[in-house]
């Protein structure tokens, strides 16, 4: 075991000794911890991490957060979230659930939402049937890390044919009490056939706080289910963030994931799905806006297992300063998955000569009757478009800002929720047009 891992052994022993976990979960944690120790933090020799060095995470020692905490900062952090105050809401501060700021009752009949801690007590069989069943804790270091140290999180179950009455907003807030800490949130979503749910996850933190968020989500979509997931990551510029969402989709289901990433010193968003039932559809979209020395990485894996499934991916990045963006999109088409229709697109806009993008589409196709395309561009603002705006009287800076926003707008338009889309458009617009 390397020194980078050994330093977490003590924290793990302490967590293991804590009472309250059922035996199966203790076993799962133990197995995940063993996997974490054996896999270790990925290096850039690992093809999944070729363009992203996690050395800044590996060389630090993050502590688990313990004990009672003050919730004084919550109000200010909630205000910064994009969304609607009337949505159902689950608020976590530094990984701990804050019941007095949460309201989960309004999602309607047939929607059961509870914290992981509560679900372990109230519906242990359901949790044990799903937790750790999709996310690859036995193959991915950060998923193993989360599974070994998982604190709290949210468990959502939507009954057959039920459409949740409103979106569920999960706010992951961090204040300075969590400086130097690690937070391992968990999301478990089970949609029974023809159920429908929207989840917005907002990651927001106070300025200047250095910490590590390592989230894992698992979503099971039954036949005909529809799951809309938006992740809005606007953490401090000192934060480290790894987030993995693994979905599996039944027949004719729809999964739409949108990732907005503008925070963090280093962030990595993994969105993975298995198209396991015929006619399932997945749409993966993302926008990252980074500058300074920020690093933002998105990885997608779409496994076409059943025939007649469609996957659509559009990711865009706008990079300034010396920032570094990475996009790696994998599409596997299994031999059974005939009539697969896959399209992957990613575009990056470089605003400075020192910003950098690495983009790697990977298609592995084992079926013969498929339509799969991918395209990637890295570019700068178009001179003719700039001239068009200037010829209407706009100054050079304003013209550049408008075109930069326009580049982002195409992918923001894919967000279905009006309040979220409008809010993200507003912050993106202000980011580029501020003087």
């Amino acid at each position: 075991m390397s020194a980078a891992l050994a330093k977490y052994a003590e924290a793990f022993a302490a967590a293991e000794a804590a009472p309250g976990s059922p035996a199966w979960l203790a076993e799962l944690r133990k197995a995940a911890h063993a996997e974490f120790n054996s896999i270790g933090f990925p290096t850039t020799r690992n093809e999944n991490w070729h363009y992203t060095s996690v050395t800044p995470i590996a060389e630090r020692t993050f502590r688990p957060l313990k004990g009672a905490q003050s919730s004084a900062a919550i109000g200010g952090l909630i205000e910064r979230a994009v969304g609607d105050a009337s949505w159902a809401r689950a608020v976590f501060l530094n990984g701990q659930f804050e019941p007095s700021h949460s309201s989960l009752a309004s999602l309607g009949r047939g929607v059961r939402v509870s914290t992981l801690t509560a679900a372990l007590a109230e519906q242990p069989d359901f949790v044990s049937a799903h937790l750790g069943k999709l996310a690859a804790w036995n193959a991915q270091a950060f998923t193993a890390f989360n599974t070994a140290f998982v604190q709290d999180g949210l468990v959502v179950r939507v009954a057959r044919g039920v459409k949740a009455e409103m979106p569920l907003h999960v706010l992951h807030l961090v204040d300075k009490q969590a400086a130097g800490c690690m937070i391992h949130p968990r999301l478990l979503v089970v949609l029974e056939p023809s159920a429908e749910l929207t989840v917005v996850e907002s990651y927001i933190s106070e300025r200047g706080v250095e910490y590590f968020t390592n989230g894992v989500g698992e979503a099971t979509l039954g036949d005909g289910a529809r799951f809309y997931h938006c992740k809005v990551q606007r953490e401090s510029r000192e934060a480290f963030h790894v987030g993995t969402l693994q979905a599996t989709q039944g027949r004719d289901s729809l999964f739409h994931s949108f990732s907005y990433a503008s925070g963090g010193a280093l962030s990595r968003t993994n969105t993975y799905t298995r198209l396991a039932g015929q006619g399932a559809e997945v749409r993966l979209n993302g926008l990252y806006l980074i500058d300074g020395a920020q690093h933002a990485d998105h990885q997608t894996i779409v496994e076409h297992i059943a025939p007649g499934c469609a996957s659509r991916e559009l990711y865009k990045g706008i990079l300034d300063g010396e920032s570094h963006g990475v996009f790696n999109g994998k599409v596997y088409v299994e031999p059974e998955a005939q009539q697969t229709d896959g399209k992957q697109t990613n575009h990056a806009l470089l605003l400075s000569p020192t910003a950098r993008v690495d983009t790697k589409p990977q298609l592995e196709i084992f079926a013969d009757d498929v339509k799969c395309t991918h395209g990637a561009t890295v570019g700068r603002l178009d001179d003719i478009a700039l001239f068009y705006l200037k010829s209407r009287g706009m100054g050079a800076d304003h013209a550049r800002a408008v075109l930069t926003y326009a580049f982002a707008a195409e992918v923001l338009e894919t967000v279905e929720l009006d309040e979220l889309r409008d809010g993200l458009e507003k912050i993106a617009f202000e980011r580029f047009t501020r003087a």
Partner: protein
Amino acid sequence: MLKIENLHATAGGKEILKGVSLTVNAGEVHAIMGPNGSGKSTLAQVIAGHPGFEVTQGSIVYDGENLLDLQPEERAQHGVFLAFQYPVEIPGVTNAYFLRSAYNEIRKARGEQQVDPMEFLDVMEQKLKLVDMDPDMLHRSVNAGFSGGEKKRNEILQMAVLEPKLAILDETDSGLDIDALRVVAGGVNALKKPTNATIVVTHYQRLLNYIVPDKVHVLAHGKIVKSGGKELALELEARGYDWVLEAA
């Protein structure tokens, strides 16, 4: 108002304008005609400050100022307007925002008060009628998904909003059907004042049935080879360009 003398311009090292001289006075409409590749569009774009061309010789004086010293946005703020032959699509930015930003920039340059979105809607109401456009277009992205005719109408709408002193229409008639042509020409005529001037760049005489020029110039091989009154356009329509080129 506009005095161009011995203007030479290159693109990618190739000389396209080879000594153009032209004087336009307030209240006048000038038509610039000529065969394809003669440099008509280049002349229009150089006046507006297109970054793809380099002026190597000559001068453009506009309202007593050396236009070539000004950035494209400064030219616009001084009242120069180019209706593009190929208007640029800007997905994600609404026409309302685009038009209001341009309108406010120009007002700011003139020392006038800026308008808020509500006041701007009042301004737009009458301008939209001028080019027969639906108010819904204000909420659509700039030119994105517009038909050719809608794009050209949108150019004239911008012109109506910005009220330029010198308007240059670069092949605004190309790709328009007869109804759209009438609307576009009607808009241009309605905006005509004794204090402003219009330069119409066109390949065909057709547009000049609707926008009647005071002077017609033939541009060929980067130079103006013949100038005359509106009857010259009719003669060109009947006889083609060859006789002018031969005479030159």
